[in-house]
Every structure is written in structure tokens, then in C-alpha cells.
């Protein structure tokens, strides 16, 4: 009936929860410092001699690997630890509304952190004439990537009341999603490609790297969109199953 208002109420509470503690500010500062460091120092922004944000987006899968689980690890484990889950789930709302509301709040928070990287966009536009369409696609891809990691963190945080366990589980899961399509790993798997020709393709298809690549080049492919949205949907659905089975005892 009024799912939207329920989701909004829960998201609002969750989001204000981030800013009530130093977590939000620490996260944003560290995120901005690290993106800056990787783009300019490790990514060789200037040495490339081209007006693009390739060196900026290149690092996002690795940066998010640790930062996004740090944002998502408390989502449900904190509810379980405090016992507020019992309050929340005895309210006249559906469990999925709570799950979606909490997820959207954290995603919005990550989006905010991403928006705050705008100085780099200004810099590159000041220095040259980049293709802003490609950059826009990169931002979309980055946001979807963050959303996928976040949905996975949401799922692992429902598994345990311990935030550290939740963090580690989600880092490992996300790492798997990176490595499946990371060139050194695919090259290694290539050695077996004779016996299992379709295997590498199948494994690489599960990787966020494969699907993020297109966005970096400025291509918004529907298959990549579907991949990220499917990861988000699947993870949130699994979250609801975990929560239901936890309640059933």
C-alpha cells in the first residue's frame, strides 16, 4: 500500500545514522584521499597525457573492495546485536521494505561520496577536452559496482551479529567477483582452455571486472546493466531468506 513511505522512513533513519557518528565523515575523507592517491600517483593521471578519467575509474573495483563492506557491514548485524531487529520486524511493514530501505540509504551514502569526487571532473575539463559522455558512463558503472558490493555486504551482515565477521565475509565474496575476471587469473585459466573452452568465459562472466570494463570505455551495455542489477537483486533476496530463516530458528 504505502511501501514507498515505509522505505523512505527506514532509509531516512539509516542515513541519519551514518551522519550521527563519525563513520560517515571518516569514510568520505578516506575515500577521497584514496581516489586522489590512486588516480594521480598510482594511476599516472598526468603521464598518460590524455584528457580522460581512465586512471580514476581503473581503481574503483579495488578501492570499493574494502570501503564498501566497511559501510555495509553494520546494516543488519547491528540490528541483530542491539535487538532492534525485533522492533523493526514487528512493525506493520514487510521485511523486504526494511531490506530495501536500508540498502538504498547506504547506496545513497556511497553515491554522495562519489559525487564529492567532482573536483577531479573539473580538473580534467580544465586541463583538456575529455569526452564527458564516457566519464558519465564511468560514474554510472562505478555506482552500480558499489551497489553490487553493498548488496553483498548487506547479505553477509544478515548472517552474523559480529561486524568483523560480516566485513571479512563480504570482502572475500567481492574479491571472488573481481578475481574471476582479473587478467592474471584469466590468463592462468587460459592454460586449461583447451579442455574446457567455455569455462573461462563462464567464470569471467561472473566477474565485476568484465562488466565494469564497458562502462569505463563509455559503453552502457544492457548486459552489463542487467548483470549489476541482478547481483543486487539476488543479494537482497538472499538477505530476506537469511533473515526469515534466522527468525524461524
Amino acid at each position, binding site marked *: 500500500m*504505502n511501501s514507498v*513511505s*515505509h522505505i523512505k*522512513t*527506514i532509509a531516512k*533513519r539509516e542515513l*541519519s*545514522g551514518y551522519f*550521527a*557518528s563519525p563513520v560517515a565523515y571518516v569514510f568520505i575523507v578516506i575515500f577521497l584521499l584514496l581516489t586522489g592517491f590512486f588516480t594521480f600517483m598510482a594511476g599516472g593521471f598526468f603521464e598518460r597525457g590524455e584528457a580522460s578519467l581512465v586512471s580514476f575509474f581503473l581503481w574503483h573495483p579495488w578501492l570499493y573492495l574494502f570501503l564498501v563492506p566497511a559501510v555495509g557491514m553494520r546494516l543488519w548485524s547491528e540490528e541483530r546485536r*542491539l*535487538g*532492534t531487529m*525485533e*522492533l523493526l*520486524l*514487528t*512493525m*506493520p*511493514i*514487510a521485511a523486504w521494505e526494511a531490506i530495501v530501505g536500508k540498502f538504498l540509504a547506504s547506496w545513497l551514502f556511497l553515491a554522495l561520496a562519489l559525487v564529492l569526487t567532482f573536483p577531479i571532473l573539473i580538473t580534467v575539463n580544465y586541463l583538456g577536452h575529455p569526452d564527458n559522455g564516457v566519464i558519465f558512463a564511468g560514474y554510472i558503472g562505478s555506482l552500480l559496482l558499489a551497489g553490487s558490493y553493498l548488496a553483498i555486504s548487506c547479505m553477509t551482515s544478515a548472517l552474523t551479529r559480529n561486524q568483523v565477521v560480516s566485513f571479512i565475509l563480504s570482502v572475500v565474496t567481492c574479491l571472488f567477483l573481481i578475481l574471476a575476471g582479473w587478467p592474471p587469473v584469466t590468463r592462468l585459466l587460459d592454460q586449461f582452455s583447451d579442455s574446457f573452452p567455455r569455462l573461462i568465459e563462464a567464470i569471467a562472466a561472473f566477474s565485476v571486472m568484465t562488466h565494469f570494463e564497458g562502462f569505463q570505455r563509455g559503453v552502457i551495455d544492457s548486459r552489463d546493466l542487467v548483470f549489476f542489477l541482478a547481483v543486487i537483486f539476488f543479494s537482497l533476496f538472499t538477505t530476506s531468506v537469511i533473515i526469515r530463516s534466522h*527468525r*524461524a*530458528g
Partner: protein
Amino acid sequence: MIRVDNLTKAFGEKLAVNAISFSVERGEVLGFLGPNGAGKSTSMRMITGFIPPTAGSITVGGFDMVQNPIPAKRLIGYLPENAPAYTDMTVSGFLGFSAELRGLAGDAKKRAVHRAIEMCFLEGVIHQSIDTLSKGFRHRTCFAQSIIHDPDVLILDEPTDGLDPNQKHEVRTLIKRMGEKKAIIFSTHILEEVEAACSRAIIIDRGQIVANGTPQQLKHRSDISGAVILRVGGISGADLKQKLSQLPTVRKTVVVDEDKFRVQARVFPQTSAVDGELARSVGELAIREKFQIEELHTEEGRLDEVFRSITLPETVKEATK
């Protein structure tokens, strides 16, 4: 309002709640008693829709909690055990959040928050963050959350736990007052609370209902219910016992306390004795014999004794005798 039918919950092999049935109507306050681990909290969690039952049914206001949980939950206010709350929120923020989830907005929300703050004496801490509150305030904040939408049904899991005696008294009075218009279930360990606030009580032990009645009825199940306490001076215990044993209404006399000035005895009635008959006949005897009466009254029975006799396993009972 609340109807529970053959409610059962199994955790693996263990039956936490075993086929309990009862109902609570508007205007009733039902006390839920039982030792720790008896299944009180599990039952309440099922009634509020937090955990699904293994078998049996729950209807609240005509809505089935399993089939149709949202409208059923709308009627309920719930205070879970240990009074959980979002520690990073302020008291007013938390109550506002609860009100919004209950579908209140704008002026209605403001009024509801204000009312709950007033009823739970939270005026002094409205803008304080919940993690800085003392246990009593935290408890009342969560209690305020449960009554924010003025629900028809209130489920309170140990509402007076962790409160000081004054606060306990306030909460008890509040429950009793609200009980006139709502259906309330609350669990407690404190037996005076049951007498003070409940119109009916259920004792649950190892997942099963072992007693169900008004506090008065339960007290009458006590062994000492109906016995007469007599304290007199100027006579020895043995003499008093001998004199009393001649009365037809007396089954037996136990000397409770004796020193050189006075004797205190508990006189048990014959099972056929009518209310007050024993006290009258003991009184007449005392006057005839010119005892120096210091005290004479009929015992109502004690809930804690009934509670112990019902919920202690037989072996423990033997050992403590």
C-alpha cells in the same frame, strides 16, 4: 482481541512452547508468569509476529498473524525483552521514527510523540541520544515506542525489568489504567506485580500452561490458603495445640513460633469448612478460654508459594522441604 490456539514452537528437537491456548479480551490484563526459559518470550515473539510458530494459530483482532501479518501487527504495541532501541538516535527521533512506521505523519505524529513522552515521563531527555540514557530511561523510551499509536493490544515482555521501585510502581499503574480499554499481555518475574496489575494470570512452565486464573484463584491453590494465623500470650504451644484440636473445624495445628511470652500457630481448616468458619470458631474458643489474643487472621495464600509448588520439579521440592 488475542486468540492463541495450540501454539507450538520447536527449536530443533526441543519444544520451547508446547501447544498453549488462551485468549485475552479488551479490558483484560493478562500476567504471564514462569521461570526463566519457560517459553514466555518465545510465545510473545510469536504473538507479535517476530518468529513464525511451528504449529497452531494466533489471531489478533480477527487477523491471522501468519496469513495476514500487516493488519494484525498494526493493532499491536510491543515492548521486547531488554527494551532494544537505536542507540544513535535521540529519544524524540526514535519515537518519531516509530510513529512514522506506524503510519502517523504531520500533526498526528507530533501529537502521538508528545503524548507518549508525557505518559512515560520522558520530558527531561527528549533531545538526548539514547546511548547516553540510564537503563530506566531507556526502558521507558522503548515502552513509549510501544504505546505511540495507542494500540488496542499491548504485549510487554518484562516491562518493569531494571526499573527502580518508584518507576516500577508508575509502570504498573500505567498498565493497570491502560488495561481498562486495551487487551494487555505482560510477562514478569515479580509476583506482587501480578496482584497489583493483572486481572488474570497464566503460569507457564517448560512450554506448557500449568495454571490459568485470576490472582485470587491462583492464591487459593496455595496450601496455606484459608488457614488461620493465631498469636496468643499466656499459654504454651502444646496446650494451645491440644485445645484447638478439640474444635471440629480444625484439621491440624502447627506451632510456627514460640517463646516464653507468646505462641504463634497456623491452624488448618477441615476441607469441608466454609469461608470464615474456622476463624470464627477459633475466635470463640479464644474468648471462652480467655487467651490474650495478639493476632488472628485468615491467610489468603501466597502467589510465590503457588508458583514454587507448580513450577519446581518434584525432586527439587522434596529436597527443599
